[in-house]
């Protein structure tokens, strides 16, 4: 499992475009808010709390093609699956690496962005906690959607249609500062479902 995590992280370090890809996407969506809605500070504050979730959802959706597809196409997935009988290890290591590569940079850049939008420290911390919990849940969902749609080529529209309904509860509870316990519950539920379904999908395609 540690080997798998190390391998995935090294692969993404070698092509460092991966990091900048989602971070720039996330930042650019948020930067566009003032251009669309004006620069009133109250309004910007309110909009930031909501749009940050839309930006997170979209930047996870655009990475869904990059989780299992490369391994599936060059045959690495088969080799890993033949070596380890319990495929759940692979799934958990993919969760960790996917979160590290695509979500951690967003959380790091979040405080800087929130000061650009006139948020105070307390609100920043609240948004940070919510995004931290919610991003895990979204990563679990993105993983199983990626595993299920391995055989469907070039269908980012279909993947979006599948993922949007699953992201709706996260966006609703995430944009409310006080409801982080429910968000935690949703993330745990999605973990339980996702680890089972991802392993199921990978076994189907690996056979």
């Amino acid at each position: 499992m540690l080997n798998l995590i190390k391998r995935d992280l090294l692969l993404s370090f070698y092509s460092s475009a991966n990091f900048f890809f989602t971070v720039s996407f996330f930042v650019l969506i948020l930067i566009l808010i003032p251009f669309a809605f004006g620069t009133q500070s109250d309004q910007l504050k309110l909009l930031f709390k909501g749009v940050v979730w839309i930006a997170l959802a979209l930047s996870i959706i655009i990475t869904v093609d990059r989780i299992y597809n490369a391994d599936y196409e060059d045959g690495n997935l088969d080799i890993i699956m033949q070596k380890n009988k319990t495929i759940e290890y692979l799934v958990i290591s993919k969760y960790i690496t996917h979160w590290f590569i695509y979500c951690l940079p967003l959380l790091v850049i979040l405080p800087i962005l929130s000061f650009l939008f006139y948020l105070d420290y307390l609100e920043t911390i609240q948004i940070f906690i919510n995004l931290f919990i919610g991003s895990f849940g979204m990563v679990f969902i993105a993983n199983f959607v990626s595993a299920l749609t391995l055989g469907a080529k070039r269908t980012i529209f279909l993947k979006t249609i599948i993922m949007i309904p699953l992201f709706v509860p996260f966006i609703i509870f995430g944009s409310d500062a006080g409801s982080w316990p429910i968000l935690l519950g949703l993330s745990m539920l999605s973990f339980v479902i996702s680890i089972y379904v991802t392993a199921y999908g990978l076994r189907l395609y690996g056979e």
Partner: protein
Amino acid sequence: MYIKINNNHIELIKSANPYLIFATIFVFIIGLYYSLFQSPPDYIQGDSMRIMYIHVPSAWFALMTYSILAGSCVLWFITRNPLFNVVARSIAQVGMVFTLMSLITGSIWGKPTWGVWWVWDARLTSMLILFFLYIAYIFLWQAISNKELASKISAALAIIGFINIPIIKFSVDWWNTLHQPASISKLSAPSIDISMLIPLFIMTIACFLFLVTVSLIRFRLVLIENKMLRTSN
């Protein structure tokens, strides 16, 4: 529990087809007569109430079809009987049409009653999500070229969607209390008059007959498709 479809069953379905079509048309005509001419207008909503006679059955059958779809996917995973997958695949598109119709007729009803075409209410939002789930089920099956794999994958997706629907309903309820007070009085019907129940009942039967007829036609279609693709499910 293992039911195998043979040629006798298909012949039976084939011979029942004209009667079913005739019965559907007949009941729809009776239902139209009752719902448009024979029932009195509602004393609050007036004649726009008549849209309910097609909106309510299609919403019921949209939900019922998804329940059957998810249930047969679960049964397929448990029993490994390909019949259940054929049932799921033949019923899905009818459910999508009913969902779309309930959304369209609902918003046409909402315009004169509420003054707006759409309200971000829990029921409406979950119907919209249900429509997305139907689209995902149908188009994922078409997108994967290996059809045996496609059936398994889309069945898994249908079950996940079935778990997702109550969560959506709960969270949108929460969201409405959080962001906006309920400004629009919801359609609460403590007592419906018998003269309104009769057309609703007839239209429900008509929609059910339509569901059965088209599902059986699609059942034959899916079986022939399977034979041509040389798969068992």
